[in-house]
């Protein structure tokens, strides 16, 4: 009985190269990663890679950069150290290999933002994928009204603060908040929902995007409904446990939907009959 070996496997990762590592906060680092030469890098904001290291497994990580040119050969991941794999990735330095599969999932439909105002609402590490969308729309520069509401537990945990001046220059109104009073903070205090009532928006032409920790969604959606936004005008990106990215392992399943394929980005209206989603 001879064993047969073939060479096509959807689980086989590609070797990518870490070009640059920078620290974002105590817990998060930003990785600039390049794909092998000759490989076309195409992705939309909201999509993710399965990234791994031999011996440590792999996990889904959102792409935080924006794919602005077909010549792009690098992308960025913003990774929080929470366990074995993320800790091992945090030990990588430029020149090291990171093993990737993807990109996976359905990201944001950027063309759907044409002529629309947008309200970006991010909590914590949710800014990682949100930044990709913000950068994509900023680059398009369509002259719409863009408002960013971003909250974290403490001022140190707010990601990409040094880039926000640039976003403001592009016309984004950026509002930050932290959960509890802090000596170094003179801005708004309270969860992200506290900033929503103060935003002036035209419910007819505004799209709201929510990405954050699981508990954030319900409250934010309630505030947005009070602002007159309907389920067609609210986009969410959902997190689930993921082991394959291929619609097979079942971990990411919510009702009939496999988040790794049909998500992570959904219109709220698509989640109508899926009480488990939020």
């Amino acid at each position, binding site marked *: *009985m*001879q*064993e*047969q*070996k*073939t*060479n*096509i*496997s*959807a*689980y*086989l*990762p590609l*070797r990518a190269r870490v070009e640059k590592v920078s620290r974002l906060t105590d817990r998060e680092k930003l990785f600039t990663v390049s794909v092998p030469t000759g490989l076309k890098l195409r992705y939309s904001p909201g999509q993710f890679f399965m990234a791994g*290291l*031999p*011996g*440590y*497994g*792999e996990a889904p990580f959102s792409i935080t950069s924006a794919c602005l040119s077909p010549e792009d050969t690098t992308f960025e991941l913003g990774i*929080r150290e*929470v*366990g074995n794999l993320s800790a091992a990735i945090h030990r990588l330095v430029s020149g090291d*290999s990171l*093993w990737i599969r993807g990109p996976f999932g359905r990201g944001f439909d950027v063309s759907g933002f044409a002529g629309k105002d947008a309200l970006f609402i991010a909590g914590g590490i949710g800014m990682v994928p949100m930044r990709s969308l913000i950068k994509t729309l900023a680059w398009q520069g369509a002259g719409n009204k863009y408002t960013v509401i971003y909250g974290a537990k403490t001022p140190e945990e707010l990601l990409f603060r040094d880039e926000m001046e640039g976003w403001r220059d592009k016309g984004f109104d950026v509002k930050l908040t932290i959960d509890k009073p802090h000596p170094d903070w003179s801005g708004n205090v309270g969860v992200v929902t506290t900033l929503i009532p103060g935003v002036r928006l035209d419910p007819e032409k505004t799209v709201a995007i929510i990405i954050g*920790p*699981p*508990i954030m969604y319900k409250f934010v959606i309630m505030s947005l409904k009070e602002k007159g936004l309907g389920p067609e005008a609210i986009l969410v990106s959902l*997190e*689930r*446990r993921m*082991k*394959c990215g*291929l*619609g*097979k*392992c*079942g*971990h990411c*399943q*919510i*009702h*009939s939907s496999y988040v790794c*394929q049909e998500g992570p980005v959904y219109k709220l209206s698509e989640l109508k*009959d899926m*009480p*488990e989603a939020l």
Partner: protein
Amino acid sequence: MDKDIEYRFLTHAGFRKFISCLIDGFVVYGTIKKDGFPAFGPITDSKDLVLARTPTHLSAKEFFFPQREALLEFDMASGSHSPIVESRDQVVIGAHPCDLAGLGLMDRVFSTGSTDVNYLARRERTLIIGADCMPDDYCFCESLGTETIDKGFDLFLTEIKSGLLVSIGSEKGEAILSKYTKPLPPKDVHLRESAKALEKKKRSFKARLSAPKEELPGIYAKSDAHPVWEKIGAICYGCGSCNNVCPTCYCFDVKDEVTPDLSGGERVRVWDGCTLEEFAKVAGDHNFRRSRADRLRHRFNRKFRYLSDKFNSLFCVGCGRCSRTCLVKINITEVTNELIRDARTEDEYLGVPAAARKG
């Protein structure tokens, strides 16, 4: 008897000889008696094979989707990964119609969208010889239309007094049968005996669903808030046995196993189960299906509703294995019948009068 299917007849002795020839040429698995109960196991002597009438404890999925299987091999120093796709010529004997129906669903899962080379390679190189059965107290395949099957096997065996009636399911099956044996054309009496056995089987079901299968997705769709979930959630151990024994549960975990000297290792997939606590947990200790009631609701809905949206088929084949194995006697027919009963008392249900429905 199905008119489109061709039949052959083998005497008992002819059948034993056929099995011996298969053992010489292939790795053969089949139904054996293990601690007095039917189970699948390796067949190294034709005497090992005991065609089981009632379902085996575990389904036949392990021969295509093993409990643990390597997907990749990696080297820690160079970081290089190479795929592992294991398969070999094998024969699986004794899979019942429900097992074959389950396998047909697995085929669709692993070939829809991204194709799974590991599963498909095993499937490709397996000769499947099905066998007929009799229901026990838990079998309810008849309610789902999987008590008989006309495809998904290479050969299919029906035991009759004087020998075995063999249905031909594929050219591969036909070729191997005539390579190793001299099958005879069946006599009318053989066909009549087999038809009678089928009638007897159909009369013997003790477990039944009280609604036609077409109605089940709709009934489940109205039952998210039904009290039965809390009721069974309160007694469930969250042990995952129901997932393990099910022929259509295909969820898996993927993890790295490193050799003791840390020089390399394998990325493996292992069966996982949606009734286990960790299944839907993400970082920050957030569990999307925190309670056992949530997890059981998910499992049952996968069988009767969620996947039918995706594959246009129910994902339960009625083998009763999950009920049979459950230590606290959570029974899939009883739970489903409870949902059916309460969906019917809501009189507008599907607009079909209760009296017009099967039950």
